[in-house]
């Protein structure tokens, strides 16, 4: 066959694949001369079971077809086509385009319809429709004026989202001017309809650690079904089992709400800040996983679900009108309290399963707090005039959270039972004292988080029922 195609015209990677398969470069040249794109030839040669003999037979058949010869349909293909009601003419058109018979059989068996196949074949025929079988291409898109030649190498953690922020792709503008789903760094085309985003300003959602938190969440993911040693559980005292199940019910419920809240805000965030959207998608998944694992715990050791929470606080969070308000309340205030619940669950674990669950959950919730505190820090440094607004949010939600705490007797009593070790009055008194200890830890931890976000003065303004747990100024001085 023709030697018109110089060896230098065979891409090096294609030549390497051919060599590995023992297929001569002459066959490769004949395939290219037939108009098959180099990538397609390489992909087909790479498939398992491709031998030099099979490649020769396929190319010879294609050359015969292009020369006007009869198109033979292999018996097995004909049988499959008949069974799936594919017209013979359609099969011949597919073979004329170079489709391997085995692939056609697979496609039909996978359920593709004759109509779908014809649509695809028409497209391919149009691409080959030029004179002499030349492909008619536009290719103007290849002159896209984006930064080119980027070649980021993986590091010790692999190829991370943060690492590919190089050159112009690292430019994260303070204001994102596009209303479409165009990824940052791509080239816009006119006329694309708006996606309806409402957050276009970096200060309204950005956190410097978002890309790292996304990678961390992916790296440190866990599977409730198989990472938790469920068989380590044994029967508990019935009152204690009821307390565990009430705690599980509460966490499941607030996890559902947390997932809904984040899910509601994601479509509002424009694509200029994909690092945040990526991280928050994992936070939404955290919430789903918490719901899953606590429901599983409640339903796997002889118990069941408990009673619903009053829900004042959760419902108020859903009604928040700004993402920074939502994040400060959900990721710092609510999640600091949730961390207290995880701490109590961990501290009172009755088996390896519970210890594992709470240990993983602590890791997840700390990641969410890391986003929350660093977003608030970013917001406060760019929106100095809105500092009081943040206090306003917190005034409202701290009061609601404390009201919810007072109203949620099932939750508080279940925690007392867990911490006391039983439901007798004496044990519950002990549990109540320990619960106060955990509340004190939570209050200080919450203020530490806000201080890290740059809102240290909150210590003076925090709701009185939280403030009572904080060291008084004289004590703080003495402690120092």
């Amino acid at each position, binding site marked *: 066959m023709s030697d018109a195609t110089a060896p230098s015209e065979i891409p090096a990677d294609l030549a390497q694949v051919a060599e590995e398969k023992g297929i001569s470069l002459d066959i490769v040249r004949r395939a290219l001369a037939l108009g098959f794109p180099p990538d397609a030839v390489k992909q087909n040669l790479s498939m398992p079971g491709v031998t030099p003999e099979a490649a020769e037979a396929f190319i010879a058949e294609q050359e015969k077809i292009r020369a006007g010869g009869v198109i033979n349909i292999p018996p097995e293909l004909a049988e499959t086509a008949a069974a799936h009601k594919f017209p013979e003419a359609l099969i011949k058109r597919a073979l004329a385009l170079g489709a391997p018979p085995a692939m056609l059989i697979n496609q039909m068996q996978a359920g593709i319809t004759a109509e779908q196949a014809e649509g695809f074949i028409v497209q391919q025929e149009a691409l080959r429709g030029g004179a002499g079988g030349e492909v008619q291409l536009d290719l103007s898109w290849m002159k896209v004026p984006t930064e080119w030649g980027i070649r980021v190498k993986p590091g*010790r953690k692999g190829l991370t989202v943060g690492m590919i922020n190089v050159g112009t792709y690292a430019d994260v503008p303070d204001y994102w001017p596009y209303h479409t789903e165009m990824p940052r760094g791509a080239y816009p085309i006119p006329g694309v309809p708006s996606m309806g985003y409402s957050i276009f300003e970096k200060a309204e959602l950005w956190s410097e650690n978002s890309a*790292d938190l996304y990678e961390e969440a992916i790296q440190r993911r866990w599977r409730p079904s198989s990472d938790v040693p469920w068989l380590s559980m044994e029967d508990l005292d019935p009152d204690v089992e009821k307390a565990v199940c009430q705690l599980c019910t509460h966490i499941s419920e607030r996890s559902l709400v947390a997932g809904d809240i984040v899910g509601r805000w994601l479509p509002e965030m424009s694509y200029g800040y994909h690092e945040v959207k990526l991280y928050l998608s994992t936070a939404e998944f955290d919430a789903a996983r918490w719901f899953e694992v606590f429901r599983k715990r409640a339903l796997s050791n002889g118990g069941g679900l408990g009673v619903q929470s009053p829900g004042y606080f959760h419902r108020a969070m859903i009604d928040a009108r700004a993402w920074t308000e939502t994040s400060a309340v959900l990721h710092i205030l609510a999640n600091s309290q949730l961390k207290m619940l995880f701490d109590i669950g961990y501290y009172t674990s009755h088996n390896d399963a519970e210890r594992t669950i709470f*240990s993983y959950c602590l*890791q997840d919730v*700390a990641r969410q707090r*890391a986003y929350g505190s660093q977003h608030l820090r970013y917001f406060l440094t760019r929106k100095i005039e809105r500092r009081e607004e943040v206090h306003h949010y917190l005034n409202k939600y701290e009061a609601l959270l404390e009201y919810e705490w007072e109203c949620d007797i099932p939750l508080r009593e279940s925690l007392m039972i867990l911490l006391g070790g039983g439901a007798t009055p004496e044990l519950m008194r002990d549990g109540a004292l320990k619960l106060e200890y955990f509340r004190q*830890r939570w209050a200080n931890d919450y203020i530490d*988080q806000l201080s890290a976000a740059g809102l240290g003065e909150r210590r003076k303004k925090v709701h009185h029922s939280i403030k009572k747990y904080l060291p008084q100024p004289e004590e703080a001085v003495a402690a120092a």
Partner: protein
Amino acid sequence: MTEATTTKATFPSVAWFEAVREIVNNDAGYKHHGTCDATVGIKIPDIQKYFKLTFEAFEVDEIKECDEAESENTDFWLEQTYAKWKEMIENIKANGKADLHHTLNTLDIEDPNDLARSNDGYRRDAFYRFNQSFQHFFDVSEQIDTEFV
């Protein structure tokens, strides 16, 4: 028949932490937890011993003995008395891993001043974000024949 070899090392010392580091850096179980990036101080104030550990990606990068100020110039530091450190390590040796009363989390909860301390609430959260990696680090010390000063 193979004969198990056990590293002997004295706690606290750079050699002891290096022995632990050697184990976790070759431990698929440690890598399974995912990447861990943190600088961690170790403080044993009653015997004036201070160390700084650097965790990066899937490995422990660096161990060094340092002064108190440097051990605090970290994301967080773990601080407890020598007796509490000894009890924790002996418990790990006896059980193959820390029992619930001797995990880093439990020790942190039970200490009114916290086991994990920091000057920054955000940086302190690294203790929770990578807690399983840190617990794994100390748990593998059960493979070391630890002597105490």
